[in-house]
């Protein structure tokens, strides 16, 4: 009888699969919502002139360096029973983790998207308008022209979200059900638990799984971008 290389906590592979599912569910939802919010805002900032535009851009860029534990603390304060959104009962839930990851991913996504849409020249927008496009049509053309930059923005946002540990530890509570299934434990927070308990080999296995997930998502993004370069030179 060969001993397994690593022995997971209660629940075995069910435990591992459940933390992968929670990790992906939280990060993909946060990045999806952030994309829906960031793209229109980036278009609005890029193509309208308003007082304080440079300050707004500087604030967005600064947001890329938000310390995640501070974000976690503020989100927990807002969602705790005594906070302004306490009635929603979201503290220590996956939804709270989505909120904190949304806040962390949004500046990254918005800043990179902003650069991408700003790079689409005015002549292209003018052409769409002159062909009878409405402002919505012109915005869609800009998104389409900037698609490879926007994919990079989404990947950067996903990278920020999936590798995040500080804020989700605070707002999610790193909870696992008694049967060994994860409620708010993710790959990153699970690694901190394993490291604290001295089970480095399990931590490493979880780390490899996390890296593999990031690799697959980034590989997909690279494939889409390379397809685009192929199109251009066709």
């Amino acid at each position, binding site marked *: 009888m060969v001993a397994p290389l690593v022995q997971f906590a209660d629940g075995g592979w069910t435990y591992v699969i459940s933390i992968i599912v929670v990790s992906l569910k939280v990060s993909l939802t946060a990045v999806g919502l952030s994309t829906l919010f960031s793209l229109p805002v980036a278009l609005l900032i890029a193509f309208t002139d308003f007082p304080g535009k440079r300050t707004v851009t500087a604030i967005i860029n600064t947001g890329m360096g938000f310390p995640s534990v501070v974000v976690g603390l503020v989100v927990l304060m807002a969602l705790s029973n005594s906070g302004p959104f306490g009635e929603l009962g979201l503290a220590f839930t996956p939804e709270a983790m989505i909120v904190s990851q949304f806040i962390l991913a949004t500046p990254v996504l918005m800043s990179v998207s902003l650069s991408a849409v700003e790079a689409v020249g005015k002549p292209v927008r003018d052409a769409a*308008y002159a*062909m009878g496009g409405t402002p919505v049509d012109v915005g869609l*053309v800009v998104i389409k022209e900037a698609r490879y930059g926007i994919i990079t923005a989404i990947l950067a946002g996903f990278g920020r979200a999936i590798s995040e540990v500080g804020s989700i530890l605070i707002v999610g509570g790193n909870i696992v059900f008694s049967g060994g299934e994860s409620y708010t434990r993710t790959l990153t927070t699970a690694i901190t638990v394993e490291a604290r308990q001295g089970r480095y080999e399990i931590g490493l296995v979880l780390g490899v799984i996390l890296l593999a997930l990031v690799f697959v998502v980034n590989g997909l993004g690279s494939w889409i971008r390379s397809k685009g370069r192929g199109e*251009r*030179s066709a």
Partner: protein
Amino acid sequence: MTLSATDVSVGFDGQQVLQSVSVDVEPGEVLTVVGPSGTGKTTLLRLLALFRRPESGTITWNDTDLWALSDEERLRFRRRLSMVFQEPSLFNAPVHRNVTYGMRVRRSWSERLATGLREFVGGPSLSDRVETALEVVGLTDKLDQNALSLSGGEAQRVAFARALALDPDVMLLDEPTSNLDPRNTAVLEEAIHSARDRGVGVIVASHDMHQAERLSDRVAFILDGEVVETGPPGRIFESPRDPRTARFVDGELMYEGDEEGGIQATERSPSP
């Protein structure tokens, strides 16, 4: 269906670019706005294409003041115009997607979705208008090629086909042959005449007097943001009434600066 700019004025950053300019085009007529570079020709075309509202004066379609309409009503008129820019400004997409763009935005969202799905399943579905437009500029073999990989001349011809395919009432062409060799210039000029013969009103902005002579039914000579004189090309170029037109025709006027900056007509220094 006369498109007119009447007494329009506009400026940028405190510089007056157009001052009380009036031009109009009838159906089946080619009007060339001719003048040195940087005198406001592009700005005038952009006003006629309803890119911005003039600071004073009106843009009218027959007797309808287009800036007095709601956005939605103005869009209906905007979609009866098409414009070709000096730079082709094509999208990063196959040629057929570029040429069909204007038609697609004229459809409802559900029709667009259905067309998109149809194209996804069975490849491009082109209307006769698109094929005819590409035939006119001799580029049917480039249908599936990415527009950004075309040469400058091919891109300019695709931009023209894109405007032609919309079957517009009025075409606004800003230096439409600036990237073309003589053979393709002739192809495009023939296409412009053919559009005119079908009843399309065409306004061309050009600094090329010879082209203006070949293309136009009327010429408006513009200088320092003002229309100096308007008339048939023969009369304007052979016996101009204004001394400034005469100096331009004789090649004595040159221009410095760009359109939206400080522009001044200056006398060309005599050759040593």
